[in-house]
């Protein structure tokens, strides 16, 4: 009985993580704004920054992986492999979130010493959508850390935790 609730809990966690990664992906891809001042038209897309492209790719990989693992049967021997892959996916998520956050921070506040002006004043809706995508990515990251700990706990004999 306890095992069943644990399994269902893990499945629900993975479903929510899949949803969060997918949401981050979609919100980032659909963020696009065109602003024009004087005679110059400026269009901000997610492909302008390499970090945002990496964020989209990483979240796509994580979404596909989560979707596939949801259907893995319980007695499969691949669960030992899932621990390693969970660690790799968590590292992908942290690195993509960190990169996108660093670039978005420069876009919002600028960098006075390098002479980089902030762009959020000119394209506010783009900035808001990117912020939303980053928040969804952060939720996916937190859930994936929990999933990593759960996979480790379920593959390595849980007997270990109760040993005094």
């Amino acid at each position, binding site marked *: 009985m306890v095992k069943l609730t644990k399994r269902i809990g893990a499945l629900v966690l993975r479903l929510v993580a899949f949803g969060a990664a997918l949401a981050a992906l979609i919100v980032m891809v659909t963020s696009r704004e065109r602003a024009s001042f004087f005679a110059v038209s*400026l269009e*901000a897309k997610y492909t*302008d*920054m*390499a*970090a945002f492209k*990496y964020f989209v790719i990483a979240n796509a990989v994580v979404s596909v992986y989560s979707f596939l693992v949801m259907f893995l049967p319980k007695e499969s021997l691949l669960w030992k492999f899932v*621990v*390693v892959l969970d*660690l790799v996916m*968590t*590292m992908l998520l*942290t*690195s*993509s*979130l*960190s*990169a996108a*956050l*660093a*670039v978005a*921070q*420069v*876009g919002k506040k600028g*960098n*006075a*010493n*390098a*002479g*980089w*002006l902030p*762009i959020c004043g000119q394209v506010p809706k783009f900035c808001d959508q990117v912020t939303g995508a980053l928040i969804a990515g952060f939720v996916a990251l937190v859930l994936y*850390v929990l999933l*990593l*700990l759960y996979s*480790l706990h379920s*593959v*390595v*004999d849980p*007997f*270990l*935790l*109760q*040993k*005094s």
Partner: protein
Amino acid sequence: MPREKILFAGGGTTKSWKLLLGLRILAFIATFAAAIVMGLNKETKTLVVATIGTIPVKATLTANFQDTPAFVFFVIANAMVSFHNLLMIALQIFSRKVEYKGFRLLSVAILDMLNATLVSAAANGAVFIAELGKNGNKHAKWNKVCDRFSVYCDHGRGALIAAFSGVILMILVSAVSISRLSINSNKFSTAAAVASP
């Protein structure tokens, strides 16, 4: 038997113990070097900004790692991971005779995995900002920094290479820790199977 050695002698000198110690020393060196090189990264240059008549106006510009929050996070995270590695090395060397009770080996493996993700986040965040500094960004009208501050960029490049090798080494350390954990638990499960009916 090597399996008992992991549990009861705190490791002894089994092959996995030596491998783990070697990998941890390398990871400590890599992350410590990355933190130090980026922490001391600073370049001051006097550049001609404008010309009034025939007199050039000079301004002194400084490129400092503290201006970029991504680099500050890089230094702090690498320092934390190198401290973790140092602590684990000390734990490994000085606890040979201590018995590994249930939760200790698991917490070592979990901490190794979490630190691997931390150092990967730090290295990646810094590398994308460094790429912006090297190539600029036409769409946002951000110009390059590296053509003027080449020493700053070189040191940054070295620190990033050290950090990425630290990432790979932390992944290997996590893998060896998890395998030691599963060997340990196999011993428990077989002992339980023998002990119970």
